């Protein structure tokens, strides 16, 4: 991850993903909840005829202290990546800036953080005010 990352909030944490993975950001999407599937699947979304599976990042990485369900969420739709993931998107709470990483230095996540959370985080970046957690998309894709 050398270039730009898209940052967004889930709960109180700021996350970032490589911007080259992102296809688009949609606001106020209406999706269909599917009962009886894995907890981290938020539902299905009709994106111009394509069925997109929406995931809840909070549930994947076992994030605590997240205010539960809202009626309408913004979401990030990812570009398809052959062999890894196909037609997926993530529900987020609020999209933020796109930042250039080279201005900052990357650090490893402190050891005391739970492994179930740690394994999806590639690195952390100390920004001026906050701490940015960089998501490891390949690891997440494997987990899904």
């Amino acid at each position, binding site marked *: 991850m050398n270039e730009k990352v898209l940052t967004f909030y889930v709960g109180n944490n700021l996350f970032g993903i490589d911007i080259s993975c992102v296809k688009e950001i949609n606001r106020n999407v*209406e*999706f*269909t*909840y*599917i*009962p*009886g*599937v*894995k907890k981290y*699947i938020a*539902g*299905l*979304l*009709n994106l*111009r*005829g394509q*069925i997109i*599976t929406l*995931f809840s990042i909070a549930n994947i990485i076992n994030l605590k202290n997240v205010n539960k369900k809202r009626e309408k969420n913004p979401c990030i739709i990812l570009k398809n990546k052959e062999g890894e993931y*196909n*037609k*997926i998107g993530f529900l987020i709470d609020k999209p933020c800036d796109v930042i250039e990483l080279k201005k900052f230095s990357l650090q490893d996540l402190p050891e005391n953080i739970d492994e179930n959370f740690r394994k999806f985080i590639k690195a952390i970046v100390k920004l001026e005010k906050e701490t940015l957690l960089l998501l490891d998309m390949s690891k997440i894709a494997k987990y*899904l």
Partner: protein
Amino acid sequence: MKRGIALNNHQFINDFIQEAAGNLEKVELCLLKLNDNIVDSNTIDEIFRAVHSIKGTAGFFDLKNIVELAHKMESLLNEVRHGTCIIDDYKIDILLECNDALKHMVNNSTESNEMNIEEYIDKLSSLLSGENKKIEHKYEGKNQKEHKDNKTSQSKIIEGESFQDRFKLQEDEKNILSDAIKHGHKVYLLNLDHTVDRKNMLSKIKSVGKILKEFEDEILFTTVLDKGLVKITFGNISANVEQCNIQKKVKTKAVNQKCKKVYRQESKLIQDSIRVKLSLLNDLMNLAGEMVLARNQLLRTMENHKKFIPNIENILQNIDYNTTQIQEKIMLTRMQTVRTLFNKFPRFIREVSKSSGKNINLIMKGEDVELDKSILEALEDPLTHLIRNSVDHGIESSLDREKIGKDPVGNIIIEAFNESGYVYIRVKDDGKGINLGKVKDKVIKKEIASREYMESLDEKEIVKFILKPGFTTAEKVTDISGRGVGMDVVKFNIEKLGGTVEIDTEENKGTVITLVLPLTLAIMPSIIVEVKGQKYALPRVNLQEMIRIRENEWREKIENISGYDILNLRGKMLPLIYLWDILNNSSDKVNKHEGITRILIVKIGIKIFGIVVDKVCDEEEILVKPLPKYCLNNKCYAGVTIMGDGNVAMILDVKGIAERSNIEY
């Protein structure tokens, strides 16, 4: 180097495999045609061409084994073609075996060079007797004599059709010929008198052209000169020079080895169809489905504004009509003829009838009927099963047939036809039929139904028992013709496609099994139901009936046995399940029967049960989309669809629901 490039190029290899597969199938079919004692040269030629083109392309990819085997087959076929070897059952068997080996090698083309094909080569070589060369020679000599005999009546110009027959050009000679023709040469035949000095003549010809072939008293040669000049060159014997008017035709023959007639047919075929990637077709189909949705939304939105926009009505109608048309046409692109499916059966019948010692004639009708590709693929197993049943249990042995005054040769007819939006596929045999009395006894013995009940049924209903699972599997019951072994599987597979199975049988006359299938799977008639504000689609094939129970009727219609609700439907006790609970794997049975309870009675296999939903909305023809892979672990869903309002709805899988709720299928 060439090999490296060619083999690395997947596109080319795939094209080769596809093309070769088509050719191999053609070979098989033609060989089987020969089997029916219809030895006609066209069929042999067709086999020859198919094998040859496989050889040619395989050569390009440096697939030595394929080339070698194909070449040997070609040699044998060539002898057959020239009449020096008579094709018989044994040879056909060998050729079929070799064809299978080729198939195997083509499908694993990258490893084909490591495969052992000696066995086949040996078999073929043993058929290619050493004497063949001699015989061929004799044959040629005879041929020439015949030509000589009627030379007087022969026209001056030898037509292309008879050219090859007459001169029997070898491959290399053909190449010389086609090469010469490319360079503007004309072909002449020189008749030699015994008076003429042969050597002198040959050198004269060599000085102006090329000698193609020498015969005892004729020389076939090519030259750029025209007839007048040739005459001058040869002086006194000019009267004996004939021009052979073969240019175009020989070229086709020499280069493509296709006789004129077939060449025309094939070129027509090429113009008629092109190869398109399946993924492209699927995309098109999805897009067309989306367009239908978009159209629906447009029409609904515009409904209230039509009055205010002049002429909009016409435009909307136009869009409406064209969208429907486009969608229908695109659906058609995925259609394939049932021929691809049927073509497997001649070989199958041949083998099964050989092993069972029965004499069976297979008749296929309506091979041009079209069905969706995915349905065709899913039909293969059930249909094979039905035909195997007909052979194994339907058709009697020749002796038995003669005893009861039937034709010793049994007939199996497979036919396909369209009727009222459905495709019917029928397997018909004139065997001994199903003994209904025995079916009845069996049902009673196995306690599937009571004697009284069985007595009350008519024939059609009785025969349906052979579709019940476990009807005959528990015990080998050859005495009731064994039919029914696996018939439940056939039924299940057909019903999964949204089709039905019908059986007609008459003792000693035969059995007819009809499969009724929808044209395509992509569009499915469904009932839209609602639970907790969310819509689900339930395939209509599974729906038996819908009932509603008012609060005050609850007590008399629903019983609760140790926590489970049972519906009393006209005396039948049916399990009742709550859709929401099943989907969620939960069981919060609170306030279940307030107001009106709506129950869908569904059937899967032989199980009938009731599904409780909040609301029954509408009936709709929905466009089926595959389930995203992330949701595959829940077997209650068969797919997803996009509703008219643009929202996604899950399609319910009744079988999965039954399994989830422990209703055993």
